């Protein structure tokens, strides 16, 4: 374990603690008594007393936070008002859909964004570049739900190639069959994000191409394709790979809208329904989990950077 690893991990934990305080405060910021906020208005006096006791609501706020955080660390995120089951279970039920959706989307983003970005950079200034960059800008301006609705209209309702909504669990329908349910949602979700990765890839390729060491590489007499692949691309991807981390974490939250459009039983749709049902513990739990996910992914990206960029270790 190098000092770098320790320092990065420490910073991530500090951020998580600060974020958890904000998330803890969430329940208390909602107007009304936190107990009724969490139990709903139909709570019985026994339930109220039990929760008061469990959360230590008569203790000072600091103690309440410690109790809450301790419970969270042990995997207890409270109980859903609507389902009356543990929040962790509610989230776990949506996890398969959400993670698969984000993963498939990520595949699109990488398959489309990176190669097309490279192409635009190689053809910088030509009509191809201008066309692709323009399209990327347009794609970055698309509301995902709107794209989703038209994808349903064309490919589901019209051509019938893909199902228009829902998603059966792998355990029910098994195999790759149920990935068909994710094709349209992942495409809708990928469009603006692939565009951002495309622009980032192009920009960092062009940045690197201006570096002195690229001139050195060309001066050696190696072939231009090799200069692009071994020297420009390798360095340009450093910036792009770190964006993959952000993007993946962001997809989980952006999927809120997409999952609603395609009626996918994921975490995102759970959040929206929980907001409408005033099921606050679930919202709180989802936010906490996504923040953790974001921090963990970024930590992994940061640490794996050491293997990609030899300079990092020195700093």
């Amino acid at each position, binding site marked *: 374990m190098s000092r770098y690893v320790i320092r990065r991990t420490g910073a991530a934990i500090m*951020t998580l603690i600060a974020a958890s305080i904000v998330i803890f405060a969430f329940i208390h910021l909602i107007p009304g008594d936190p107990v009724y906020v969490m139990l709903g208005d139909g709570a019985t006096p026994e339930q109220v007393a039990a929760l008061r006791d469990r959360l230590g609501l008569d203790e000072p706020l600091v103690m309440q936070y410690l109790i809450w955080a301790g419970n969270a660390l042990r995997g207890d995120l409270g109980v859903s008002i609507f389902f009356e089951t543990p929040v962790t279970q509610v989230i776990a039920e949506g996890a398969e859909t959400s993670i698969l959706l984000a993963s498939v989307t990520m595949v699109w983003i990488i398959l489309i964004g990176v190669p097309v970005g490279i192409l635009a950079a190689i053809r910088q200034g030509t009509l191809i570049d201008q066309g692709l960059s323009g399209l990327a800008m347009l794609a970055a301006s698309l509301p995902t739900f709107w794209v989703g609705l038209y994808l349903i209209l064309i490919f589901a309702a019209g051509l019938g190639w893909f199902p228009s909504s829902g998603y059966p669990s792998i355990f029910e329908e098994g195999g790759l069959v149920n990935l068909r349910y994710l094709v349209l949602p992942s495409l809708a979700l990928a469009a603006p994000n692939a565009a951002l990765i495309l622009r980032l890839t192009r920009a960092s390729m062009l940045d690197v191409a201006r570096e002195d060491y690229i001139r050195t590489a060309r001066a050696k007499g190696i072939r231009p394709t090799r200069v692009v692949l071994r020297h420009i691309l390798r360095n340009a991807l450093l910036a792009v790979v770190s964006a993959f981390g952000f993007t993946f974490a962001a997809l989980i939250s*952006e999927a*809120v809208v997409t999952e609603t459009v395609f009626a996918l039983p994921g975490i995102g749709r759970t959040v929206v329904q929980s907001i409408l049902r005033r099921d606050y513990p679930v919202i709180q739990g989802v936010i906490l989990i996504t923040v953790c996910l974001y921090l963990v992914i970024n930590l992994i990206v940061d640490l794996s950077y050491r293997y990609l960029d030899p300079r990092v270790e020195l700093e």
Partner: protein
Amino acid sequence: MRQVLMMLPTSAIRRPITALGVLFLVVIVIFAAASPWIAPYPPDVMDPVNRLLPPGGDHLMGTDHFGRDTFSRVVFGARLALLIGVGVVAFALGTGVPIGVLSALFPALGRVLMRMVDVLMSFPSLLLALGLIVILGQGVFNAILAIGLIYLTTTARIVYGVALRLKAEPYVEAARSAGAGTWWIVTRHILPNMISPLLVQASFVFAFAQLGAASLDFLGLGAPPEIPSWGNMLAESRIYITRASWLLLWPGLMIVLTAFSLNLVGDALRDRMDPRFREMVRR
């Protein structure tokens, strides 16, 4: 500032598509300013006989499920689009700029403030906005706050970076050692040099505010349903997608083109900006 604005026409000529973007934004502003005169019908008058009419005839863009004129609603929708855009930009810059500048000027304070910004950034943006809506309740003003909070963080980071660089510029150091006060340095040296990065950031924030607001509307958590915003129009006509797909076409196109135009303008501005700061305002 003048310099930045003056280069808009030249870059617009260089890239005809940017000129079209500017033109579209002008149309949106005119729609918003003169909606009652441009719209052929009031936006909320129902006409049950003429429900779900296709485009053409008396109704340029057809009618919705209550028989309301889609074109009129699209024209009035420009008002909310501008309100949201201006509101979010004002909030993001109004909070992000002081946070960024103060952090750059006072390193001790900066460590705390930028740490807080980092914490906010660890929240996925849409969830952050939704969380705030849960606390504040639904409404146009709250939607502005919720979306503005997302861009507070990015703005503060950019401003912080730019201000740090400016602070290290020789002429600022010289002014400092000549005894210039903090206020003087901020108003004379830092803010004026920050205008072009801020202008670029403002156009991107304006663009993404449109998409964010549309998402909130679509989820039923944005502007109240009686307001004819483009996002609300999409949310309401969603179930008619197969029967009357044009209902979703117009408001959707308005959102896309508004965001696209703003992105084009932002990009053109950035291309002409001081290359040192160009890196910082990306996306």
